[in-house]
């Protein structure tokens, strides 16, 4: 469309070499801004973090000392950081399988429906779109020990058969229901729950897209071969066909899970939760590196974080290349 109104001059064909040089120059001119920014914004910081993790640097100080691997030793010996790894690992190991499982479950259910598919899809996707910080504050109100909707709903169950059925209920009615965010037994699970709540719709949408690519004939073929039950059909046809989607969904869920921050900071601006039970890595980087100006430690955590994330992505790429269809 735009080619038409361009000036139609220069009909003489230029020599080939001249053209090649021109193309090369243009190519470098076109990629230069991106290239420079990539180096300055993505690569240089990684190198800086790597170097600073070996120092005791603080912003504002003129000089610093090289301390070798001391920062890393601290990470692996102090109990604070043990709690950090525990919280991060608990979060990732809980949120990833459950949000992937729920995403797959919801996708399968929705895909098998005739009506209302779009309605469910839209609603389940809402948390993905919403500002997580705002929703964290909404959840905080829901979890408020006295006026929150959750404990109010639980209180309604008092005096009913639920009390006999469910020890948690009996205990809550007899004394009181948990304070959720203030209780170190529940805090990390609340964070996990919100992570799942926010993320499973994303996985569902990816699985729904993956399901449209499963061929109908495969189901017929499987039935011919004696796969009678729905479970057999799922195991033999759907699950293998969703392999690539699963690899991708698991990786991206992992990377997102490692980066959990908003909810933790919103609930406990200081310290990372009751007894540091929700002291996740991103929060640790923020607290140590930015708030307390302990750049060395913060950089060491950053490096570990990068290694985890890169490792995960490399596994994903390897899996995608190796066994796209297993």
């Amino acid at each position, binding site marked *: 469309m735009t080619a038409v109104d361009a000036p139609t001059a*220069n009909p003489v064909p230029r020599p080939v070499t001249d053209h090649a040089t021109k193309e090369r120059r243009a*190519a470098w001119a076109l990629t230069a801004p991106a290239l420079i920014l990539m180096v300055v914004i993505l690569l240089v910081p990684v190198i800086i*973090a790597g170097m600073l993790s070996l120092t005791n640097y603080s912003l504002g100080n003129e000089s610093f000392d090289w301390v070798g691997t001391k920062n890393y030793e601290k990470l692996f010996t102090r109990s604070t950081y043990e709690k950090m790894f525990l919280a991060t690992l608990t979060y990732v190991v809980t949120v990833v399988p459950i949000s992937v499982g729920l995403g797959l479950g919801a996708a399968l259910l929705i895909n098998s429906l005739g009506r209302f598919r779009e309605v469910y899809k839209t609603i389940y996707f*809402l948390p993905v779109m919403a500002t997580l910080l705002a929703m964290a504050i909404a959840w905080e109100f829901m979890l408020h020990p006295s006026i929150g909707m959750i404990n109010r709903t639980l209180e309604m169950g008092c005096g009913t058969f639920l009390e006999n059925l469910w020890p948690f209920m009996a205990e809550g009615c007899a004394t009181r229901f948990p304070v959720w965010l203030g209780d170190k037994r529940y805090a990390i699970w609340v964070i996990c729950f919100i992570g799942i709540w926010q993320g499973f719709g994303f996985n569902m949408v990816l699985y729904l897209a993956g399901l449209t690519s499963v061929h109908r004939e495969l189901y017929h073929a499987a039935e011919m071969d004696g796969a009678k039950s729905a479970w057999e059909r799922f195991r033999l046809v759907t699950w293998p066909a969703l392999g690539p989607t699963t690899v*991708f969904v698991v990786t991206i869920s992992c990377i997102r899970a490692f980066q959990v921050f908003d909810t933790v900071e919103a609930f406990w601006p200081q310290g990372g939760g009751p007894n540091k039970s929700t002291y996740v890595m991103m929060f640790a980087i923020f607290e140590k590196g930015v708030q307390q100006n302990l750049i060395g430690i913060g950089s060491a955590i950053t490096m570990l974080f990068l290694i985890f994330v890169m490792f995960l992505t490399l596994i994903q790429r390897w899996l*995608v290349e190796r066994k796209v269809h297993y």
Partner: protein
Amino acid sequence: MTRDWWKHLILILGVIVVIAPFYMMVSYSFKSPGEIDRGEGGFFGRQELMVDERCVKLRDPSRDDISTATDRFPGQSDSEIRDALLAEATAECSMRPVVFNYTKAFTEAPLLRYLLNGIIVTASIFLIQVVVALPAAYALAKLKFWGREAVFGLVLFCLLIPVHAIALPLYIMLAKLGLTNTYAALVVPWTISVFGIFLMRQFFMTVPDDLIDAARMDGMGEFAIVWRVMLPTAIPALLAFAIFSIVAHWNDYFWPRIVVTGNRDLFTPPLGLREFKGDGDGSFFGPMMATATVIVAPLIVAFLIAQKRFIEGITLSGMK
């Protein structure tokens, strides 16, 4: 339908859990503090007139006010005039809870400013990303040059680095340059979208070479080709990328939290909400939820209007 009832049952239970915080957020933004405390009033609250205590206190009549008002209340004692003035103030400070909550949301904190900042930051990020990524993607897809493979390899490598993960060294660099607490700090780290380069390159690979050759025949330079030939063909992909980028940066909290400290004029919407929460003495649930609703609403409304495009955009990263 009858056969599927159990599926609907499960899905509806899920819907309840997913919707609950949204329901509560919007509902609280309608209710008076008393209704929130006691948990009454259904979804909309009863919308009985309520008195804004602070507004009344601010209008507490002084001696001067009383003496100037003697004309209006002839033959009354000072204390009677005082009571009359107080009654007036109370009447003028009464309003429906929904009005109270939303006016407070916009007057207690500069919410409009926050929203404007959000727009400025997300829009500049997206525009710069396109200006940087599009030419590079074109060169990588359609031009032959020595080093192309190396550049593309670098793009693939950089895809491994999440910007949030390197926030600390980026923060140090910006601090060294004296750029913290500026718009630049909010925008700069996001100006390079390796994902955008990758995505647009994959898209440009599918554009026929004939189109470009024809443009060259017409005497267009490579720069002109990028903006006048490639850009128009890339509109659908760019739209999806726009949604991806805008949603991510409107909702981002981590990075603004690091580089903006204290300077309210630079707060993005999530930061503003965070400060609102920090300020609140607990009785401000209504206005706070009104703020949250205002911040969440633009994207949700846009999403409900153009669901297909949004889902496409957000799940972009899932395309191979």
